[in-house]
């Protein structure tokens, strides 16, 4: 890749005189601006959703009802889930895609910059609507982020329409983002960059975008059915009118399971970029990584009913979904094996991005194993709707997806800001997060196995100690993220000047442009691209 260094000069503002102030951000079509806005937005949402988690953990610190009433508690669990899924994790990945995909494939911008602006700017409205619903009479959504009928139809508060419309807007935003990613990747790759030479982050986002296109419309359909059932007298999910509430779960999870891969596939791409960089070795099994990602995405459409083992499905269907689910661990295992093999005999250094990537590999694998346990139909009857499930999906989403986003942020911060972040503070953030995330989520496995149900504001006395430990871990994890905010602000404001390629072992087109990346990069496509950066 070093052949293209130096071709890129600062093109700063010579074809746009960029407007300043608020209008710059409002009207920008620049992928870097939009990427930054996505990332800041997702971080704000992460803190908002996190504060709701703090309310949940404060209430659960002791048995009994002390701080909030159960209805408000239910709103907190619901909105925490919605915000973290649609407001924190997904926009963070879209932000990374906006920033990095054009720079990784040598394109000057995303293919559809005006749509890009729109897909970001409708998001704040979606979440304003969702959060406003909490202040309506009767409260906001309190039926869990999965909004099972009839909880979301017959028994929901009057503000459910706001929930529905906010999900519609989030869906439209995601779909536009996905279309943009696909068109960009298909049409704007640098000369010589065939599909099998794309960086893995680009590959994983390419596949994720297809998943988004396929399932977000189904989610939109599901919320629309909830809307008409509740307000317009249809009976999609109402047995009294010939509908079926179990069908809701089928439709929801047909979206919901691919959705969880939407939230983890880009992580795989990030980790596949970081591990070879800090192990100073080519990635082991580039092609198998691509095929494994595609295989996971394909299988994700065949496993939805493993969320529904206790709905009274026939044994044959339960076995089918059990085996399909277990099959997913094969491509996932390929990936974990490849990461470990990449590190084998590498000369590893432990800068913060690598620490987060390593923690990702270990903790995501733990989450994968508990997922495998949940996939076993007969035992799922015991685990279903307990804290074991909560522990499982937080291991894959917090110490999985979010850790990978942290890793990505540290890895590319020097490129974004032009400054090195404070390594000491960043390591403090890492170790505080690592310890607290395990104190927070590991004991939940035991609470769940012992039978503690999820989404309940009170619990039996025997769970008191475990919950106290979990809550302490929760508060510590929440506070640790403020260190991250501090590191980022400090890095934006100043710090040691970052070179174009701050990481010795890193490779890829994004490192061929100066740091901070100029407002416009790759106005002329880079030349000399001959293999994927991970392969070196």
């Amino acid at each position, binding site marked *: 890749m070093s052949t293209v260094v130096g071709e890129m000069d600062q093109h700063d503002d010579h074809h746009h005189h960029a407007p300043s102030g608020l209008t710059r951000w409002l009207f920008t079509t620049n992928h870097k601006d939009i990427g930054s806005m996505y990332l800041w937005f997702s971080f704000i949402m992460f803190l908002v959703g996190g504060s709701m988690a703090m309310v949940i953990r404060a209430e659960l610190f002791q048995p009994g009802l002390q701080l909030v009433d159960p209805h408000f508690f239910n709103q907190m669990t619901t909105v925490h889930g919605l915000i973290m899924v649609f407001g924190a994790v997904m926009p963070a990945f879209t932000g990374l895609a906006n920033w990095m995909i054009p720079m990784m494939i040598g394109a000057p911008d995303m293919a559809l910059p005006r749509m890009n602006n729109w897909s970001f700017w409708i998001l704040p409205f979606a979440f304003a609507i969702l959060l406003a619903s909490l202040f309506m009479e009767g409260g906001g959504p309190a039926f869990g982020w999965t909004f099972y009928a009839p909880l979301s139809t017959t028994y929901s508060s009057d503000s459910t329409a706001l929930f529905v419309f906010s999900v519609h807007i989030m869906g439209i935003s995601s779909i536009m983002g996905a*279309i943009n990613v696909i068109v960009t990747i298909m049409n704007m790759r640098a000369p010589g960059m065939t599909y099998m030479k794309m960086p893995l982050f680009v590959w994983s986002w390419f596949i994720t975008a297809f998943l988004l296109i396929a399932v977000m*419309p189904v989610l939109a359909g599901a919320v629309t059915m909830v809307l008409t059932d509740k307000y317009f007298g249809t009976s999609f999910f109402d*047995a009294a009118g010939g509908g*079926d509430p179990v069908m809701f779960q089928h439709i929801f999870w047909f979206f919901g399971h691919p959705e969880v891969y939407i939230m983890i596939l880009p992580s795989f791409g990030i980790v596949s970029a970081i591990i070879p960089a800090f192990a100073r070795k080519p990635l082991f099994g580039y092609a198998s990584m691509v095929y494994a990602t595609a295989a996971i995405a394909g299988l994700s459409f065949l496993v939805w009913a493993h969320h529904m083992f206790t709905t*009274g499905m026939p044994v044959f269907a339960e076995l089918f979904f059990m085996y399909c689910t277990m099959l997913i661990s094969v491509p996932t295992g390929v990936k974990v094996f490849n990461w470990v093999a990449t590190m084998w005999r590498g000369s590893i250094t432990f800068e913060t991005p690598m620490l987060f990537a390593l923690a990702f590999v270990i903790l995501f694998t733990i989450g994968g194993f508990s997922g495998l346990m949940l996939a076993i139909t007969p035992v799922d009857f015991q685990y279903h709707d307990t804290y074991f499930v909560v522990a499982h999906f937080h291991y894959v989403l917090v110490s999985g997806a979010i850790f990978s986003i942290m890793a990505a942020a540290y890895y590319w911060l020097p490129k974004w800001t032009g400054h090195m972040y404070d390594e000491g503070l960043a390591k403090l953030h890492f170790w505080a997060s690592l310890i607290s995330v395990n104190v927070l989520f590991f004991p939940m496995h035991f609470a769940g196995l012992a039978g503690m149900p999820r989404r309940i504001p009170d619990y039996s006395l025997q769970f008191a100690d475990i919950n106290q430990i979990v809550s302490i871990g929760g508060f510590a994890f929440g506070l640790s993220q403020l260190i991250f905010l501090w590191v980022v602000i400090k890095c934006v404001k100043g710090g040691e000047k970052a070179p174009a390629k701050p990481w010795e072992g890193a490779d890829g087109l994004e490192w061929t442009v100066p740091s901070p990346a100029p407002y416009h990069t790759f106005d002329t496509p880079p030349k000399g691209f001959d293999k994927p950066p991970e392969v070196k």
Partner: protein
Amino acid sequence: MSAQQGKPDNTRIIRRLLLTVIGMFAFGFALVPLYDVFCDITGFNGRFTDGQAAANTKAVDTSRTVNVQFITRVNQGMPWGFEPEVRSVRIHPGETKVVNFLANNPTGSDMVAQAIPSVAPGEASLYLNKVECFCFNQQPLAAGTKTAMPMQFYLDPEIPDHIHTVTLSYTMYDMTENATPDALAAFVQPAN
């Protein structure tokens, strides 16, 4: 930057992706009838076509006995009393049986209701045949009256050997608002 040579241009890809989006949105709704068809064919989920079965012409298999249980409930907010005359019957596959269900309308107004059946295990729904059932039609019941509603059924002798117990559940729904003219006709005072 314009599209490079040999690559499809943006509009074509966007058009295809948008079609996929619309198609998947439609697919979400298509799942509703597909779900019904799938459940009807396989008997999954204990739902079954509630059509009238032909009169029983099957030979009775006296070597086996299946316990058929009846469960009744009324939908939330539905004021009727509704219960089976017997909680369970033991029958041979192929044997025809009539069971009465008792309903009463304790309110001061005429009401129309319909019972929706469900069978557990779902597999058994394919072998439970109803020759006559109150659940085929809406049931009108004048204020303060009660009635006995018959249900005539038999089990297909093909029913798998491992099924020893079949549970038939009825939920009674208030249909007064959506009553058919046939059901409402019951409330018309006979002309004198």
